[in-house]
C-alpha cells in the first residue's frame, strides 16, 4: 500500500523529524566546540579540620587518591601535613572557640594530579572542581570525609 499523495500530515511529520535532527546536531556541535586542552601537572591541596589519627597514619606519600563521588583520579599524595584537630563549639558567652580532640588531627594532603585550570573551575579527570568545594577522598587505604579543596596550582 504505497501512498500516492503527500499530505500536509506527512509534512508535519517530516518537520518534526527535521527539528529533532537539528536539535541533536546542534547539541553535538556545541559539545565539539569545547576546547581540548592538554592536561597539566597540578598540585591540589585538600584540608580537613579533623580526621581520626588512625586514618591519617595509614596514608603514605605516593598513595593514589580518588574523589569518592565522581571517582575522579586525584593523582598521588606528595605531602602530608598534620596539626591539632579543630572542633568548634560555643562557650558560655556564646562565642565560638576551637578545641582539639585527642586521637584526631587536622590534615592537609597535597596531591600531584593531572588536569586543566580553566577560567571556570579546574577539570580533573572529566569532572570540574573548585577551591572551597567540600569533597571526600579515598587516599590509599584511608577515606577522609568532608574536607575542602584548599588550593590548586600548576606544579613547577
Amino acid at each position, binding site marked *: 500500500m504505497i501512498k500516492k499523495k503527500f499530505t500536509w*500530515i506527512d509534512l508535519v511529520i517530516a518537520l518534526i523529524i527535521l*527539528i529533532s535532527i537539528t536539535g541533536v546536531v546542534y547539541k553535538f556541535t556545541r559539545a565539539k566546540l569545547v576546547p581540548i586542552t592538554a592536561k597539566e601537572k597540578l598540585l591540589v591541596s585538600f584540608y580537613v579540620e579533623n580526621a581520626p589519627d588512625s586514618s591519617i597514619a595509614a596514608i603514605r606519600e605516593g598513595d593514589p587518591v580518588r574523589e569518592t563521588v565522581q571517582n575522579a583520579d586525584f593523582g598521588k599524595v606528595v605531602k602530608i601535613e598534620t596539626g591539632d584537630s579543630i572542633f568548634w563549639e*560555643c562557650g558560655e558567652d*556564646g562565642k565560638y572557640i576551637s578545641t582539639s580532640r585527642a586521637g584526631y588531627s587536622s590534615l592537609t594532603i597535597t596531591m600531584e594530579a593531572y588536569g586543566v585550570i580553566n577560567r571556570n573551575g579546574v577539570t580533573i579527570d572529566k569532572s570540574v572542581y*573548585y577551591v572551597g568545594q567540600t569533597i571526600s577522598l579515598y587516599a590509599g587505604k584511608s577515606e577522609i570525609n568532608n574536607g575542602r579543596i*584548599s588550593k590548586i596550582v600548576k606544579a613547577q
Partner: protein
Amino acid sequence: MIDKNGKLFGKISIIDIALIVVFLAAAAFALYKFGIFTPAGSTASNAGKIRITFFQSEVNTFTAETVKLQDPVTDAVLNVDLGTIVDIKTGDSISWGKDKNGRQVQSSKAGYSSIYITSEVPGTIGSDGITIGGYKYYIGDIFTIRTGISTFYTRIYSVEPAG
C-alpha cells in the same frame, strides 16, 4: 461537528489534531532551546548592566584568598552567567552562637573570613525581581556561585544599576 468518519467539520480528524499539538510542542521546545523566545532573548535588548553583591558570612580564608577581580561568576545550579567580579571585600568571619542566657552572640573563627563579592552583569532590576539571563533572582536568595576556580555558598546582599 464530528461526522460519522470521526472528522471535525468533515476535514480534520482527532489524529490530525494530536499531530498538530505534537508539532506545536516540538516547535515551541526547539525555539526555546535556540533562545529565540526565551525571556533572555526578549529582555536582552533592554537589559542594562547591574551590580550584584553576594555575601557569605563564614568561608575558609583559603577560598576567600583564591577569588580574584575579573573572575567569571556563575550560578552553580542553573549555570546562569552572573557576570565578572568588579569588587571583593573580606573581613573577619561572622559566626553566631548562643550564650548561657540564650542570647545570640557574634564571634569570629580563626581561619575563616566573611566576604562580599560584587559582579557586573547585564540584567534588569524590576519591581518583581532581578532578571539575569532569563532567570529571576531576588535579594536574599541563597545559592552556590562559582567564581573562577573557587566556589561560595552565598546570599544576594544587594543589587543596583552599574555606573
